[in-house]
């Protein structure tokens, strides 16, 4: 076991899979010699060579097309989109093409592609770096969307993503890259895609979240415990498809729920979670399911992140509303 940050765990997962499977290819803008703008691919080109880990021209759409073409030749591409705000350039390759390939070819072709991309606020990035756009890709049939919140899960989920024979969008929250260390096994292991994790058990209210907001939920839960409120915190880990069973089981126990996301209210995937709960557990609810989200504006100018991004205080407030409904 080693103490790792999330970024180290991610590098470790790619190293593991580059070693395990010669078809794994890692490429993108500055991922080669430079080791990535966040050092996520540090040392990989030295270890595995330029044939396996390589730079591309600066064109996201081209990177998407490259991945699709390489997949037809039996490779297992792990492309990087430098920041997920740049996904608009490659929406067709992701949602219009790779997500549909198995279906459109009736299974003749499939796309074992893992698109890695950083996102997320709180680190004062310039425009269109931090935007939470998981809601866009979560709406595309044919994709799975994974968002880890801890180093341990990042490694296990990324190995699962790379081994998956269908496209996976793997979103890495920038604020979580180096914010804490955790014990991460050096050997290979997997964390199942599509399975949520109960990060904290509780009996009064269920907090459902993902990404950096998981940690805000945990902080809020700790604070609320002092006031005698026992919150259960669910980390979705995969936002498409969502783990309905874990959510419903928890809501049936607590009878109250709040869904927490960093994305704007009209974006993200919280509305989907609310719908599933009301379709499947409405008779178990003591109060409506409320959402904690960012306001429906364009992502904040960096100096306004603090007042704009949802935080643990917003969560406590919303839980109080639900408890006193």
């Amino acid at each position, binding site marked *: 076991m080693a103490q790792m940050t999330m970024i180290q765990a991610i590098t470790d997962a790619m190293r593991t899979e580059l070693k395990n499977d010669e078809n794994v290819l890692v490429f993108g803008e500055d991922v080669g010699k430079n080791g990535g703008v966040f050092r996520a691919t540090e040392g990989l080109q030295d270890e595995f060579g330029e044939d396996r880990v390589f730079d591309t021209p600066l064109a996201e*759409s081209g990177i998407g097309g490259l991945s699709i073409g390489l997949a037809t030749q039996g490779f297992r591409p792990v492309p990087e989109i430098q920041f997920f705000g740049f996904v608009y350039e490659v929406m067709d390759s992701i949602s219009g093409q790779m997500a549909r390939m198995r279906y459109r070819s009736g299974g003749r072709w499939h796309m074992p592609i893992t698109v890695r991309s950083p996102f997320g606020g709180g680190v004062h990035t310039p425009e269109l770096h931090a935007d939470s756009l998981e809601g866009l890709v979560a709406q595309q049939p044919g994709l799975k969307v994974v968002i880890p919140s801890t180093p341990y899960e990042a490694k296990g989920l990324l190995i699962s993503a790379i081994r998956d024979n269908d496209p996976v969008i793997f979103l890495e929250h920038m604020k979580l890259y180096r914010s804490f260390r955790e014990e991460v096994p050096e050997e290979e292991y997997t964390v199942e895609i599509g399975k949520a994790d109960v990060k904290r058990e509780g009996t009064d209210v269920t907090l459902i979240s993902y990404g950096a907001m998981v940690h805000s939920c945990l902080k809020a839960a700790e604070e609320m415990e002092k006031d005698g409120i026992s919150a259960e915190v669910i980390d979705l880990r995969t936002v498409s498809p969502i783990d309905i069973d874990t959510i419903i089981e928890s809501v049936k126990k607590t009878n109250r729920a709040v869904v927490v996301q960093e994305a704007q209210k009209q974006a993200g995937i919280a509305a989907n979670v609310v719908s599933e709960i009301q379709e499947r557990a409405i008779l178990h609810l003591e109060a409506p399911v409320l959402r904690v989200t960012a306001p429906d504006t364009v992502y904040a100018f960096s100096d306004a992140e603090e007042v704009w991004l949802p935080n643990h205080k917003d969560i406590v407030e919303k839980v109080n509303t639900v408890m006193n409904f």
Partner: protein
Amino acid sequence: MFETFQILNEDGEIVNKDAMPELSDDQLKELMRRMVYTRILDQRSIALNRQGRLGFYAPTAGQEASQLGSQFALEKDDFLLPGYRDVPQLIWQGLPLYQAFLFSKGHFHGNQMPEDLQALSPQIIIGAQYVQTAGVALGMKKRGAKTVAVTYTGDGGTSQGDFYEGINFAGAYKAPAIFVVQNNGFAISVPRELQTNAKTLAQKAVAAGIEGIQVDGMDVLAVYAATKHARDRAVAGEGPTLIETLTYRYGPHTMSGDDPTRYRSEEMDNEWEKKDPLVRFRKFLESKKLWSEEEENQVIEEAKEDIKQAIKDAEKYPKQKVTDLIGNMFEELPSHLQEQMEEYKEKESK
């Protein structure tokens, strides 16, 4: 620079002896056979579309030399990434005719390429096939295969970002790709002059630092020779080539309501009909005593018979069910699709 490469003129005379490709008499006849067959396929497809027996169809008449001359230069294991008008190349590369009809009708089996056919189904998003081709070609290079990836777009498609990105990526990686631009003068109603101020489309290759060739797209020998040249370069590790074929579609853009009389004059149609790739190649073959009216009629009859059988086969192919569509989404169905699969299985069992 970027002068039009031609071997056969409108009268069927060889005007560029040095460039004459090495093709046997049988190969020359086969080329003619395919062009005639494809012209009939176009006529019958339009008729079947009008009867409602086919769905989406983009006419091909006029582009036989461009489509088949280039495909004729390929090997069996080369990878084809066609656009929506490039069904003939798929057929001659190995897609059964009834499946091409199923593609037109909107049935997934039409897209299930046979295992021995290296091809994607016709791409509807103009330009997407170009960036994908760069990836296929890079994959071949990494595998050390002596094959090429070949793709097609139209004149309008050269304005897309993916067009530039595709040729630029293939150039940067020196990947074995052949990019064909079939310039038929119009993107639906928009003339090629409105796409760009560039004098040729072939010169767009300069932006990627790769070789560009403009070829008479009504001259099957010139298209074949240019593609063969590009293929030889590609497998020799010399990188991609952009080929612009100057061609024309005699029919509408698609059978989905386009009316070419709104944007094309009769004079223009007549002028291009004089350049008909079948007419000039027929003259050439007749001068070499390699082609007769009898042979041509035989091909026409054969095509009509094949088409009749293929449309029957397409029509009796099992209808699609929602459970088929769900089943084709993932290798392993996620929970929400398992749930929906059960739902539809029950509906379908009633």
